[in-house]
């Protein structure tokens, strides 16, 4: 144990050298700790994101397949036809097979399904006792009547019953979202829509004409819970339905430029009904069907297994089952980049630390040749001399570890947040381009869940929120990892520097 005493004495007496080594070691450890804490916080944030996002899979018609089959049938027809318009796909022949409720129910009974929501979308025209909200109404509620009148005067859609609708255009005045439970509808689960009065649409409302209407629409038409109004069938204006207001909700979604032109795209004109009512509007062919069914799993880790099992119950040529993995990936992309960068910081600083400390220890050992020679001449073993240097560096490392422990979290917070801010702005700009292109295709979970209208006409806050803040905390595990890395740096540095010591002969040391 003599070498321990010598090491401690050497550290204590040679204050200048010890302070220099301590300062260098502290800087190295602070950077490593910053990297470790950022990495750990990133992984934790990604894990939390996965938990908060949950796992959902949406069953809907396979649009891609339907489109390609449509194109194939068009081209085979074209070869037999000399029609001048043969180059265009026949829009009338393109149809999507709705999901049958019985299949959806079978899938809902698979393991790990905690809940499922049904969506059947369509549109409806306004009856005589209700006026839809035009875009001008939404932007300035104080001029509701005037702007509505102006729109009518100008013949723009949105003012009163649309002429286009009457002309056989099945767009209508209202967007009907037929659901199994309005609480599970994406707008409500994402909290862009909130029930302000009355009750939500539930399974109990199957077969009824109960409806949730938007607050602006209710105020504009002086409707309250329990009141009734009429809407008309999108394909047959003369067929009307008497709706009972079961609840009133408020939405934070707003119309985009496209929604300015069509009433049914205005979020205030969205009516939530039971899916059975939406199917009634769509016609007899749609009885006991849905546009899409979204399953929420109790364990996100079981998503792949669920999809595999569910695909056995459906015809994958006709239906597709899409997971929210894309949303998750979009959410964690910046954090993954930061985690990867943090890992590189740890590796780089550890490598640089080994090199820097090895060089410094080598230089100090060269200066201590005389001391080594004296110790060897007295009979000390080379190994114990190496241990002495290791203990000296280890003691310094312990002091540095304490300093780094106090300051590493602060550095980690500053560096981590800067990195995340950079990554967030970079991925936001790239993903917004992707969303613009992808949104119009109506694909993915969101598009599927919203059925035929997708997200067109409304800019909603429901897209995946990127993680913009890191909760960097210092745990015992990170201090332990840092200590282990520091110990490794000490060991490798002394080992590399000791090659010279092991080759030294005491006589040569003392005579040179």
């Amino acid at each position, binding site marked *: 144990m*003599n070498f321990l*005493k*010598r090491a401690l*004495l*050497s550290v204590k*007496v*040679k204050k200048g050298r010890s302070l220099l080594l301590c300062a260098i070691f502290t800087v190295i450890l602070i950077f490593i700790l910053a990297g470790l804490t950022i990495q750990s916080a990133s992984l934790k944030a990604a894990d939390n994101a996965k938990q908060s996002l949950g796992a959902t899979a949406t069953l809907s018609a396979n649009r891609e397949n339907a489109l390609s089959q449509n194109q194939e049938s068009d081209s085979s027809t074209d070869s037999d036809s000399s029609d001048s318009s043969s180059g265009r796909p026949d829009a009338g022949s393109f149809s999507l097979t709705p999901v049958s409720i019985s299949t959806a129910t079978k899938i809902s009974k698979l393991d790990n399904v905690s809940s499922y929501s049904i969506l059947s979308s369509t549109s409806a025209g306004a009856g005589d006792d209700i006026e839809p909200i035009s875009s001008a109404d939404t932007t300035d509620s104080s001029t509701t009547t005037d702007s509505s009148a102006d729109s009518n005067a100008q013949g723009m859609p949105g003012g009163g019953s649309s002429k286009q609708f009457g002309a056989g255009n099945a767009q209508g005045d209202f967007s009907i979202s037929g659901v199994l439970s309005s609480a599970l509808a994406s707008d409500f689960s994402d909290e862009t829509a909130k029930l302000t009065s009355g009750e939500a649409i539930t399974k109990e409302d199957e077969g009824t004409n109960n409806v949730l209407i938007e607050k602006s629409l209710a105020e504009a038409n002086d409707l309250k819970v329990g009141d009734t109004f009429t809407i008309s069938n999108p394909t047959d204006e003369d067929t009307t339905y008497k709706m009972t207001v079961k609840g009133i909700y408020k939405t934070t979604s707003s119309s985009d430029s496209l929604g300015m032109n069509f009433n049914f795209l205005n979020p205030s004109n969205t009516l939530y009904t039971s899916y059975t009512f939406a199917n009634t509007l769509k016609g007899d062919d749609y009885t006991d069907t849905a546009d899409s069914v979204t399953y929420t799993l109790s364990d996100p880790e079981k998503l792949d297994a669920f999809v595999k099992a569910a695909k056995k119950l459906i015809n994958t040529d006709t239906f597709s089952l899409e997971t929210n993995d894309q949303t998750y990936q979009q959410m964690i992309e910046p954090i993954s980049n930061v985690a990867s960068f943090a890992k590189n910081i740890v590796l780089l600083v550890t490598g640089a630390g080994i090199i820097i400390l090895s060089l410094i220890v080598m230089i100090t050992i060269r200066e201590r040749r*005389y*001391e080594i*020679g*004296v*110790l*060897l*001449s*007295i*009979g*000390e*073993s*080379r190994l114990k001399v190496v241990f002495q240097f290791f203990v000296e560096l280890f003691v310094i490392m312990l002091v540095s570890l304490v300093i780094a422990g106090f300051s590493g979290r602060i550095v980690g917070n500053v560096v981590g947040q800067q990195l995340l801010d950079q990554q967030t702005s970079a991925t936001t700009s790239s993903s917004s381009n992707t969303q613009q292109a992808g949104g119009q295709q109506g694909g993915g979970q969101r598009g599927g869940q919203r059925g035929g209208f997708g997200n067109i006409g409304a800019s909603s806050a429901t897209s995946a929120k990127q993680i913009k803040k890191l909760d960097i905390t210092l745990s015992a595990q990170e201090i332990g990892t840092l200590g282990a890395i520091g110990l490794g740096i000490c060991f490798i540095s002394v080992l590399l520097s000791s090659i010279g010591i092991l080759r030294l*002969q*005491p*006589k040569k040391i*003392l005579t040179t």
Partner: protein
Amino acid sequence: MLEAKNIGYWYDKKDSYLYKDVNLNFEKGKSYAILGSSGSGKTTFLSLVAGLDKPKEGEILFNDSQINKIGLTNYRKNCVSIVFQAYNLLPYMTAIQNVTTAMDITQSERSNRKEYALASLANVGIDSSLASKPVSKLSGGQQQRVAIVRAMCCEHDLIVADEPTGNLDEQTSKDIITLFQKIAHEQNKCVIMVTHEKEVAEACDYIYELKNKEFQLV
């Protein structure tokens, strides 16, 4: 106790021997001086018997055991103490720490090492206040006395000293030589001293002169 048998040594080429077929015996309780001019090879001989280097030819026996077989590190640790011309003390330590460090390394059997070291230093005129100072703050004579005490306290039977008075004034040199004589005679140690000073050599019991690549008993 120590026997050099047919020792031969050269630096670069075998045909340029420093010395050849050296046969010398050293006994306990006696002091020996190896006298020679500068560059004659007397320090090299001392490093061979101290286990700091190996002879090119022949063998060195300590209590009838080859020191190569004992292992040079073990030999230095357990059998021999060395006093250098340049003292070779650990500069960041005090006098007392230098002595106790050597006792620790050589695993001295004394339980009260510090007290024993302080008493030994006091015997050579290094009181406790001096003993507590870093050795770099002591004079050359004081440092040499600390180096001698360090060698003594290890309680090895063989003490070798390389020009121990080379850096000291006349009076201090006499004191140091007296000290070595006491160690040899009173503590029954074998002291081998290398010197180029005749006065120092004459104070020893035996003198070997290294002249013309040969050791001659004077």
